[in-house]
């Protein structure tokens, strides 16, 4: 629960953003991020909350790194951590995913 996961903001509605996490769209909360967030921004998310806006210069490298992590199959601890960070964003069905 430590790695967080980056995603691209698709839309913003009040304190909630719809974010694209490597093809999965989920809601993430914006009440603890320290910068204004708009459509097209990339944010790092932890347990369902955006915690940092990723500076433009770092987006490519950050995504490449997580792509690398997510290429690992289930059972790899770091990949599982990132996947559960995606689950932590709203809109999914946590119980099914957790017990699968």
């Amino acid at each position, binding site marked *: 629960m430590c790695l967080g996961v980056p995603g691209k903001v698709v839309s913003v509605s009040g304190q909630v953003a719809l974010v694209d996490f490597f093809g999965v769209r989920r809601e993430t909360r914006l009440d603890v991020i320290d910068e204004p967030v708009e459509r097209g921004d990339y944010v790092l998310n932890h347990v369902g909350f955006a915690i940092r806006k990723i500076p433009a210069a770092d987006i490519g490298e950050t995504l*490449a790194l997580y*792509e690398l992590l997510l290429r690992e199959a289930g059972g790899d601890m*770091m990949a599982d951590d990132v996947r559960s960070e995606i689950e932590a964003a709203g809109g999914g069905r946590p119980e099914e995913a957790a017990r699968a």
Partner: protein
Amino acid sequence: MPETLARDAASELKFRDPVQARALIAALEHVLDEIGRDRVSVMHVCGSHEQSIAKFGLRSALPRRLSVIMGPGCPVCVTDMPEVDEAVALALDGKVVATYGDMLKVPGTAMSLAEAEAQGARVEIVYSASQAIDLARGTDEEVVFFASGFETTAVATAAVVLESDMPPNFSVLSAHKYIPPVMEIVAEMPGTSVEGFLAAGHAATITGSAIFERFVERHGIPVVVAGFEPLDILAGLLKLVELIRDGSAAVANTFPRCVTAEGNLVAQERLWRVFRATGGNWRGIAHVPNGNLRLRDEFAELDARVRFEIDLRRLWGHAPHTLLQSCVCGDIMAGIATPIDCDLFGKECLPGNPVGACMVSNEGTCKIWHQYGGHPEL
């Protein structure tokens, strides 16, 4: 899909390039030569760091003189048994207990939440504090969010506690822990000879690297904030041994991509508006002054410890797991033992049937070592 995905070998090389890794290791050798001692020990406090170290076999590649120990970097593992007991008692008492998945099998004095569930208690896995509060909105039953994690994760709990339309049946049982104070305890433990700390990059995204300044001043040993990829870790270790060589007790940040000195001030404000740091036991380690995060008095009505009379007497009839007496999880978390010092590791204690907390969580040293080949030091 985001357009900048790079699935090619170039991106792999960028983070895991063996040529760069060898250069960093050679530089480490050189600095250790300059230090000139048989052993230099440093500690990290992050499950993700340990996962990366074990998965990529970094310990076998590192100079043998450099000992990299995992300390209390697993929040689930350091959750004290009486804290689990409180959650178990509430669950057995008919409350719906919502918690992060890896808390389920963590042993309490009498039983784990998974065992309580097997006895008919209702325990729900959530991935976020928001899902816990949503659960409360969908039921009339009392929902208790058994909240674990270090300060980074406590921020999410704080944000939920500050919501304006709080359902009346939602409360929080906080087992959140605050990492800087335990570094002070571990640094002074007899039996440890830690000369520097590697701090977790992502946790410091919120707290900022400056949070370690006070520790460095008080203890005179350096702290380096590092990322979790193999090259990030090697670069962090190199900076750390350079500071040790120079006798420089300083905070360095080798992960500026994610971490600033001041961190996320909005998140910190939320965290400290909701929580106060108070002393408490960490499993197997010690009483840690200011090591526990508990709800402030203003939020007493959301505090499960205030709202409910938590009756632990019903647990008195249950004997603890006899194997637990041989578990050395506490010593492992303190950095004075490794999983292979434990007679149960990989035998009676396995991920599918864990005896101690360190085999339960993905951030626990035992589970990580078991997953990536037993003893990554060899």
